[in-house]
């Protein structure tokens, strides 16, 4: 793999994948839980300082700095809950499933460390219904930890419904509290989430694995990969027109095309979908963009949930986008009008465009709908769909112009390369 600049190195000693899955092996490879018997104020402050120095950001989609999230939560008081978010509702993502199956103890260690520093009373791990293999591994790991006195606070496995928005953090907290999996309207994201009257600190499973590593080996080990602004490694699920779809661990800052190369594309890609179904298309002009937050932002993208999909020459980007928006529309929690009615309308416009059945008002109407839906949901679900379509209109601009004149895409009815849950995706 080619490094894009001097600050980037391939993952060397530091990695979160590939550690033993059983507790004895985990202990032998990585050592004990780096936690004193009675962690005092000095330990807590040192831990906070170390997390801050690492520059770790959340790996679940929003990329929020873990140290800031921790500070907000600590201010909300003790006795709360650490929630391990392994919901991974994104159909094209496998990284959290793989991580929990391969290294469950590293993730749970991260949760225990955050429980100690926030003086939380419990750890709750959320694995959706239907993912029995992941649940079995986590349950087994929890039993091992309880027997070995490796878990200072109780660890519990819960099984929320497997829906796209169920993993949105306010929806997850609401499900734990009430059994209803719905996002909440939170105008101020600086307010800590709560379960009952106690605070809840929610982290993606991958983020917690990094916490487990940083606490053991220090912030510099984490920073030995990645860029100055966006350090560390991260897990990327690669799929689409590739020979070997799967999950890879890459240094932040690796060029997009070099990440795709790990899965061996079937030919030169037409485009890359970066960040997930609510992510962004990136065209060939920007294939060498480093996979790090600032460079990605300059091309309108973000790492999102760590998904990279290769669009092959034989696929139509607009037709695939139409299917994705139909899917996202169907996954709305159904609470906010702009999302409930706006996403199907946008999906319909994009479908007409791909089929070459656009009316003369379609492009201005679609533009208005994208503007009107953006930022108007309680959660960011509709914003993801808008980002996807906006980038499609830019990256597949030549196709858009041709289709708007009534020339259908020759590839529009080809079978999709996108992954959808069974029974969904026929657009």
């Amino acid at each position, binding site marked *: 793999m080619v490094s894009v600049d001097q600050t980037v190195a391939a993952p060397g000693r530091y990695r979160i994948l590939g550690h033993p899955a059983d507790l004895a092996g985990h202990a032998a490879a990585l050592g004990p839980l780096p936690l004193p018997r009675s962690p005092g104020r000095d330990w807590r402050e040192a831990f906070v300082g170390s997390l801050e120095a690492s520059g770790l950001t959340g790996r679940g989609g929003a990329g929020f700095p873990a140290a800031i999230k921790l500070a907000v939560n600590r201010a909300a008081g003790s006795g709360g809950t650490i929630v391990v978010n392994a919901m991974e509702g994104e159909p094209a993502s496998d990284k959290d499933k793989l991580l929990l199956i391969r290294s469950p103890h590293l993730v749970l260690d991260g949760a225990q460390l955050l429980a100690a520093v926030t003086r939380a009373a419990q750890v709750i791990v959320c694995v959706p219904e239907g993912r029995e293999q992941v649940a079995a591994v986590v349950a087994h790991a929890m039993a091992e930890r309880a027997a070995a006195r490796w878990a200072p606070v109780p660890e519990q496995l819960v099984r929320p419904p497997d829906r796209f928005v169920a993993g949105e953090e306010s929806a997850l907290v609401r499900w734990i509290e009430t059994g209803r999996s*719905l996002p*909440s309207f939170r105008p101020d994201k600086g307010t800590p989430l709560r379960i009952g009257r106690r605070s809840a600190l929610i982290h993606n499973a991958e983020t917690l694995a990094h916490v487990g590593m940083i606490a053991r080996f220090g912030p510099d080990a984490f920073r030995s990969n990645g860029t100055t602004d966006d350090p560390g490694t991260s897990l990327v699920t690669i799929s689409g027109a590739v020979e070997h779809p799967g999950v890879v661990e890459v240094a932040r800052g690796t060029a997009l095309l070099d990440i795709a190369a790990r899965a061996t594309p079937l030919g030169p890609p037409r485009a890359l979908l970066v960040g997930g179904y609510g992510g962004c298309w990136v065209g060939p002009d920007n294939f060498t963009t480093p996979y790090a937050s600032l460079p990605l932002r300059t091309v309108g993208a973000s790492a999102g949930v760590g998904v990279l999909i290769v669009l092959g020459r034989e696929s139509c980007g607009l037709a695939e986008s139409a299917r994705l928006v139909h899917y996202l529309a169907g996954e709305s929690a159904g609470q*906010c*009008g*702009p999302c409930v*009615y706006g996403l199907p309308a946008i999906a319909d416009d994009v479908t007409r465009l791909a089929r070459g059945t656009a009316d003369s008002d379609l492009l201005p109407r679609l533009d*208005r709908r994208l503007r009107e839906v953006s930022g108007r949901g*309680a959660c960011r679900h509709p914003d993801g769909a808008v980002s996807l379509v906006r980038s499609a209109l830019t990256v597949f601009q030549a196709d858009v112009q041709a289709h708007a004149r009534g020339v259908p895409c020759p590839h529009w009815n080809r079978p999709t390369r996108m992954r959808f849950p069974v029974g969904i995706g026929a657009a």
Partner: protein
Amino acid sequence: MSVVRIMLDPVACDAYGYCAELLPEAISLDELGYPVVDGKPLPPELAAAARRAVRDCPRRAITLRERPGGH
């Protein structure tokens, strides 16, 4: 100097549309009748109309947020 902004709870809103009628200077309706807030600070002369829009919303979906400073 404090700045007042209109905050709309999209979960509560059911597109009654009273707000856009009471405060057309700051709130318009999209193609399905859901309100769109322009996001700008509310001019002081609209404060009374804004309070009425808050009070008359059948879904209690509108609030006014006051913040010190210019943002």
